[in-house]
């Protein structure tokens, strides 16, 4: 089981996966807005999305856990 950590600060504006989805390394998990621009956050490992820790509209900080991948 792995944790997906936020690579940088920003605000979650779109979540591309649902709990239960199967994802691969480098798939887009969510989109974060930072410095008025949108940045995709890619999965760091393959697996099933066990839990999403954030909602659209949340502000995240570097190294926050944003999802649990199994």
């Amino acid at each position, binding site marked *: 089981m792995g944790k997906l950590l936020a690579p940088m600060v920003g605000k979650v504006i779109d979540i591309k996966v649902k709990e239960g989805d199967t994802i691969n390394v480098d798939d887009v998990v969510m989109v974060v807005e930072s410095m008025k621009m949108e*940045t995709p956050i*890619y999965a760091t490992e393959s697996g099933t999305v066990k839990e999403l820790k954030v909602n659209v509209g949340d502000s995240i900080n570097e190294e926050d856990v944003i999802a649990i991948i199994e």
Partner: protein
Amino acid sequence: MFETIRQIFIMSGLEELTAGHLVMWLIAAGLFYLAIKKQYEPLLLLPIAFGILITNIPVTGLMEEGHGLIWRFYHYGIDWEVIPPLIFLGLGALTDFGPVIANPKTLLLGAGAQVGVYITFFAALLLGFDVTEAATIGIIGGADGPTTIYVGSKLAPHLIGATAVAAYSYMALVPIIQPPIMKALTTENERKIKMTRLRPVSKLEKILFPIVTTVVITLIVPDSAALMSMFMLGNLFREAGVVKRLTEAAQNELMNIVTIFLGISVGATMTAENFLHPKVIFIFILGLVAFAISTVCGVLLAKLMNLFLKQKINPLIGAAGVSAVPMAARVVHKVGSEANRQNYLLMFAMGPNVAGVIGTVVAAGIFISLLQ
């Protein structure tokens, strides 16, 4: 009957219309196209293009000294040096200095990218521009619109329109101009270098940073005070965390409002008699050269630093030393992400990016104190 029509014709602007005006209409049309269809910096190019159009309609008196509506926007906003510092207030409120504080070495990259400013300054002198004009053109190399306008208003007001349009065009073209230079100067493996945060940065450090930086920089270069103090005040709003409403107003509403007046006033300085001049072509070419040299020097300086650093930095972030905030940082992020998807260089690139702003403002302050 015929006499009445003749009278209307004379009262209208039609009689005063010149070929120069029509050329400026075409330029405005070109900028409308770039802004609306291509979406190149539309927030700025759209009001600028409209300003160009209406300033080149004769007899309207919109730019007439003392009376015209847009003259007033220009006079009280730009001549009085109010608008560029207000934009900086908003940029300060948008910037996270955390990565810079954690890794202050990256600030050096912002200095490297100022080389283009000085090289272009001397090139412009050699091409016959006078010293104040050369300084205004050189500043384009910093790719910093508000600073370019600020220097222009102090040193060479007749060039503001052309230099501002050049600066904003190049900023809009950052994603086209920079990546080929960045890729040519780096290897695939260098672009893949993943950067990690060196250490956590405390809230106290983030609050002290804008205060200490303001005192130090404005003591050393007093002429940078207007831009630098507003920039740091915006950042203090952000980091203090107790004035969320002010932070958001500076980032959004205030910045949007002044952007409207900045764009239309800058456009309106581009009258046919000011703009249709062989000098303007040189300004555009020199501006591009300045910008390219700044990018090259930033990347090369990053590679040079890597020779001495244990924990290598990704040399791409050197390109963010030009101060197009946050466009240059975004380009760095994208090019880095192409090489390695797990690479999130954005906030690391903000270090040199912000240092580039400081560097350009300092260069501007030096030019102004020496030349004014």
